[in-house]
């Protein structure tokens, strides 16, 4: 087990470094940097003055130094929890993260809980009553969930809310600690729309896993010794089929933070995604870098935890 953990940990660090380098280089390929945008916005008259201003801003922000130096400094700062200053908002990026991250995280967790709450039972019922009416309904539902693009589901829900319930996207975000009920009312719709999308593969996977497990010998043994059908399904079959489902949910959950961009845009949730879109369009490198870095970090940590959990739960992985 310990060698497995070690090997897995050794993979974690280089991947994180590689991902951060990728995003760093990519952002610097952008034609037209922040200095140009800032200067041309103010609209000074002479182009020579503008060029000098651009040089000055570049110097202040350290953009005139070699990219390797910039990267090393960025990493050194990031290790101390300092992601630099936002060019546009003129405040530490950490503050922006501290404000936005919990919101997106809450939305992601809510989404996963909602998705699991109905996807897993639906998958079980679908498998237990294979080829029954419920099975067909649930398969149709999940197939449509996979085909409806997120932004369309989101737009339809928004339309329904606006048209029939006079609901409007909130002007101001209310945090959970301020007012839990108001907060949930704001987040439940984007979470539902996103959950509908990801519940489709979860239902399908639960169903196919259950179908495989109920044909195993130990399930037959459980039946043969006279256990009630409920006990057979829930205690023996479901527990054993949930392993891959959990891995899959973990994998999805890790990516969710970045995948929420669309829902945040539609339902006006001021989270990481909407901040990222804005920062990208404003060429606010430090903010973009930090946001993408945090998203990759969360994804890799969740993956790591899921992998370790999986190895702990399933001895076959550890010794493979």
């Amino acid at each position, binding site marked *: 087990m310990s060698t497995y953990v070690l090997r897995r940990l050794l*993979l974690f660090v*280089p*991947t*994180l470094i*590689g*991902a951060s*380098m*990728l*995003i760093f280089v*990519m*952002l610097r*390929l*952008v*034609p037209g940097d922040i200095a140009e945008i800032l200067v041309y916005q103010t609209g000074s008259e002479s182009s020579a003055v503008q060029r000098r201003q651009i040089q000055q801003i570049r110097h202040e922000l350290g953009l005139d130094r070699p990219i390797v130096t910039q990267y090393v400094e960025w990493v050194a700062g990031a290790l101390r929890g300092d992601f630099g200053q936002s060019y546009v908002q003129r405040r530490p990026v950490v503050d922006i993260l501290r404000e936005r991250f919990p919101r997106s995280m809450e939305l992601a967790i809510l989404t996963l809980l909602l998705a699991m709450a109905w996807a897993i039972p639906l998958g079980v019922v679908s498998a237990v009553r294979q080829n029954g009416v419920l099975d067909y309904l649930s398969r149709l539902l999940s*197939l*449509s969930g*996979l*085909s*409806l*693009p*997120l*932004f*369309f589901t989101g*737009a*339809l829900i*928004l*339309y329904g809310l*606006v*048209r029939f319930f006079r609901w409007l996207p909130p002007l101001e975000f209310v945090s959970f600690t301020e007012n839990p009920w108001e907060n949930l009312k704001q987040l439940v719709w984007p979470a539902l729309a996103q959950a509908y999308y990801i519940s489709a593969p979860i239902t399908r996977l639960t169903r196919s896993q259950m179908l495989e497990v109920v044909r195993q010998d130990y399930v037959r043994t459980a039946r043969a010794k006279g256990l009630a059908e409920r006990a057979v399904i829930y205690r023996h079959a479901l527990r054993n089929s949930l392993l891959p489902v959990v891995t899959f949910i973990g994998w999805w959950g890790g*990516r969710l*933070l*970045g*995948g929420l*961009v*669309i829902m945040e*845009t*539609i339902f006006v949730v001021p989270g990481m995604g909407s901040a*990222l*879109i804005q920062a*990208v*369009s404003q*060429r606010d490198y430090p903010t*973009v870098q930090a946001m*993408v870095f945090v*998203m*990759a970090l969360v*994804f*890799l940590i969740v993956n790591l935890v899921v992998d370790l959990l999986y190895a702990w739960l399933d001895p076959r992985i550890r010794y493979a």
Partner: protein
Amino acid sequence: MTARMARVVRAQPLGAAGAVVVLVLVLVALLAPRLAPHGPKETGFAPYLAPSREFPMGTDQVGRDVLSRVIWGARLSLYVGLASVLFGITLGALWGVVTAYVGGAADTGSQRVVDCLMALPPIILALSLMAALGQSVNNVILALVILLTPTAARTLRSVALGVAATPYIEAAEAGGASRVRVIVRHLLPNCLASYIVLVTTNISYAIVVEASLSFIGAGAPPDEPSWGGMLAQGIQALETAPWMVFFPGLAISLAVFGLNLLGDSIRDLTDPRLRGGLG
């Protein structure tokens, strides 16, 4: 021929339905200039007209015919989907197969690069790429190629590892075939089935990513008839002109649904374990 087709339809009714949808999509895309009553960027009608006999899907905020834009949108979606998948999956497949066969540092190294690329959430990676490349339809394709390549490299690598371990590869090597010959004559043809499955299953994915990018304003320029972009403009006027959201949304859902059904059954047909009596 017809008997065989009837057998396919009976064995894969959903796949056949998907094939019909895809066929319609392709025809609409090809015949867009003849089918569309107006040009996709043609303005000059009254804005926000509700669906009527003259404008079956209404008009949008600058007075363009939504029906025409939906029809031209099929062409844009299919173009982006096909081009990005063909380039991306082919590149990734070659990359995966060659590194799997060469092995050693090339293989481990390339897999670590794939790890890094896959650690970034796909829509975020695409968004950052679009920021770097600038907004245009062809840059969306380029971003998608970069998105699809690592996935294909990972999948085809594991397939190629399996094929490389088979006796006939060993036999070819023992017979003195060069590495290039082994890859071209033996390895690649035997990975073809997985390649085809990847291509068919990823077209709908690419179409959705294109639409999502245009939706968040980072994809095709706003005047291009992208279903995602049209939907985004529709959301701004959701209460006055809901048709601006419904019709593009319906079009993309139908296209993706058809492509998914078709892709699913192609996967079933190429997987010998799932193939039932379709010789």
